[in-house]
């Protein structure tokens, strides 16, 4: 069934028609077979019925003739002889006719029946010969002979004949009954099978019609949907085509812009190429410079070491200076003491001079001078002290400065080392930059070549766009046609409503 469902409509229809055809042929064949059977049985029936009927007739004739004979025997002279002969003649004719009718089917009889029939016919002929003899005897008036004959021969023959006829009739009747039973069975069978087959065929036919109509309905629905989709698609295509046409015009304008842009890019690429070449030169130069810088840094480090040594010397000198200034301070303090003592001496001298009165006046002046000298030397020592303080401060500052200088030298040498590393990095970077610039140069050259290839490609695109414009117009027309086609298909479907 699944095969049937899955197969195409054509195969379905073909198989259905074939099935119908087969059923019809079967029905026809069966009808023919049954008719043939019926005809055959009719013939047989005819045969058997004729035989049995004629046997009955023969029996009746035999019995009639027998009755007449027996009447003649009993009445003897009184009996009308004309009636006898006439009756017997009539019965003879009838018997002959019956035999004829029976013998008519001799060809169709089987052997036993044929033997029986022939036996009956022999007996009949024998009976009728004896009957003729009896009639002769009756006409001659020899009733004694007749009785004798009748008693001895004819009675036996007639009874035997009668028996045989009964047997034959019974047999034929039985056969007829059997036949009629069989024919009845076949007719009943035919009566059932043929209508049922016809009904089955009708049902099948209805089913086929239903299937086909369902299939057609499906097809119609699908076609309808398809048409709707078609019309929708057609409108969509139409709008798309218009959009595409506007898009193509925009693309055309964009293309011209693109062309100018590409020209600019090409020029930019050229500039980039030149710049890259310059960068290569510059980076090589900078690599050289970096090497020089490295040497300079090494020299700087050595210089720093020298400066460090000098700094040590300076600090030693400053320490010596500090010690010497301390010594100077001690000396000045002793000078100050001396000045103090000389001042006291001057004062004492002045006191002595005052005691001396007028004679000591000159001495007082000298004492005053000494005192002023002592004052001056004291002032000088204070000045020296101040200066020494300044020197001490300066020395301290110098010590701090030398310490800072030493630190600065240390950090400077560190920085110089770092700058050496940095310069190394710079050298590497410069080399990398040179490599990169070479790559950039190659890339920009490729770019330029690409740009020059793009220009004809752009021209091709422009041509393609022009073709596109034409194509979109054609597409619009085609879409219109599609739309019309959908409408006409719809109308057609409406017309051929399934």
């Amino acid at each position: 069934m699944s095969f049937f469902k899955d197969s195409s409509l054509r195969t379905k229809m073909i198989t259905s028609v074939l099935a119908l055809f087969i059923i019809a042929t079967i029905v026809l064949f069966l009808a023919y077979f049954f008719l043939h059977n019926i005809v055959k049985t009719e013939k047989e029936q005819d045969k058997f019925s004729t035989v049995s009927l004629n046997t009955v007739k023969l029996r009746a004739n035999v019995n009639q003739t027998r009755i007449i004979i027996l009447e003649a025997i009993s009445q003897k002279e009184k009996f009308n002889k004309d009636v006898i002969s006439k009756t017997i003649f009539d019965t003879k004719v009838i018997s002959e006719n019956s035999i004829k009718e029976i013998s008519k089917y001799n060809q169709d009889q089987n052997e036993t029946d044929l033997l029986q029939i022939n036996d009956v016919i022999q007996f009949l002929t024998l009976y009728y010969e004896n009957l003729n003899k009896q009639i002769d005897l009756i006409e001659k008036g020899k009733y004694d002979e007749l009785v004798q004959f009748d008693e001895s021969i004819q009675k036996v023959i007639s009874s035997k004949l009668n028996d045989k006829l009964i047997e034959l009739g019974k047999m034929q009747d039985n056969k007829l009954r059997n036949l009629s039973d069989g024919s009845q069975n076949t007719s009943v069978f035919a009566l059932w099978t043929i209508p049922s087959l016809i009904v089955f065929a009708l049902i099948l036919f209805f089913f086929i019609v239903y299937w086909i109509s369902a299939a057609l309905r499906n097809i119609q629905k699908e076609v309808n949907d398809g048409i709707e989709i078609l019309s929708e698609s057609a409108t969509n295509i139409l709008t798309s085509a218009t959009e595409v046409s506007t898009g193509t015009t925009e693309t055309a304008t964009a293309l011209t812009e693109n062309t100018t842009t590409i020209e600019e890019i090409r020029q930019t690429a050229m500039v980039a190429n030149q710049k890259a070449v310059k960068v290569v030169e510059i980076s090589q130069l900078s690599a050289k410079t970096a090497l020089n810088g490295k040497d300079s840094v090494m020299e700087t480090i050595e210089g720093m070491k020298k400066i460090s040594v000098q700094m040590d010397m300076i600090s030693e000198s400053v320490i010596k200076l500090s010690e010497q200034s301390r010594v100077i301070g001690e000396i000045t303090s002793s000078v100050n003491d001396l000045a103090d003592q000389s001042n006291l001496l001057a004062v004492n001298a002045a006191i002595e001079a005052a005691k001396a009165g007028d004679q000591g006046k000159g001495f007082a002046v000298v004492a005053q001078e000494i005192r002023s000298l002592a004052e001056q030397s004291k002032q000088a020592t204070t000045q020296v002290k101040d200066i020494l303080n300044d020197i001490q401060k300066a020395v301290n500052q110098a010590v701090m400065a030398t310490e800072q200088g030493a630190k600065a030298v240390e950090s400077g040498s560190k920085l110089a080392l770092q700058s050496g590393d940095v310069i190394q990095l710079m050298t590497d970077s410069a080399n990398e930059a040179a490599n990169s610039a070479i790559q950039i140069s190659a890339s920009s050259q490729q770019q330029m070549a690409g740009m020059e290839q793009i220009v004809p490609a752009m021209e091709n695109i422009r041509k393609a766009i022009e073709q596109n414009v034409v194509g979109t117009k054609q597409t619009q027309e085609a879409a219109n046609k599609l739309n019309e086609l959908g409408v006409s298909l719809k109308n057609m479907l409406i017309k051929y409503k399934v």
Partner: protein
Amino acid sequence: MNISDKEILKRRATKLAKKTNVETEQNEEQIFMLCFELASQRYCLDTSFIKEVLVLKDLTPIPNTPDFVIGVINVRGQILAVYNAKKIFNVKEIGIKDQNKVIVLKDNDKDIEFGILVDGIIGNIKLSLHEIESIPDSLNETGKEYLKGITDNGIIVINTKGFIESQFLVIKQF
């Protein structure tokens, strides 16, 4: 060097010379005084009572003596008592001065000799008597009896004789 410079130098020389002339020019009686410093204040003593001025050296403190006695010193074989002038004149101690000098005072009439410890010696000065102003009576502090007056320069003039001969300084405990 032109003429105007010379004139300027001359004028300056005369100006300086006048200052010294003022000191030498004297018509009235003058006294010689020794000026010393005590807690930033200047005092002066009459030179006729001063034997000499010394630097304080090898001081020997003496126990069981009044506050104003510092100790004794040896001056060329002579033992001399040293008094603290600040205690005597009731001057407050301001800081410490290591330049302590000893003024040796002597009264030949009474045969008294002792030293006073001062902060510093300023020098010998001459004073006219009219230059000394008397101290106002309203001030009544200790040692006022020894004070003679005060000069225009703010130098306190000590009545040297009174000071030396005062009973205050006589040490009864001896």
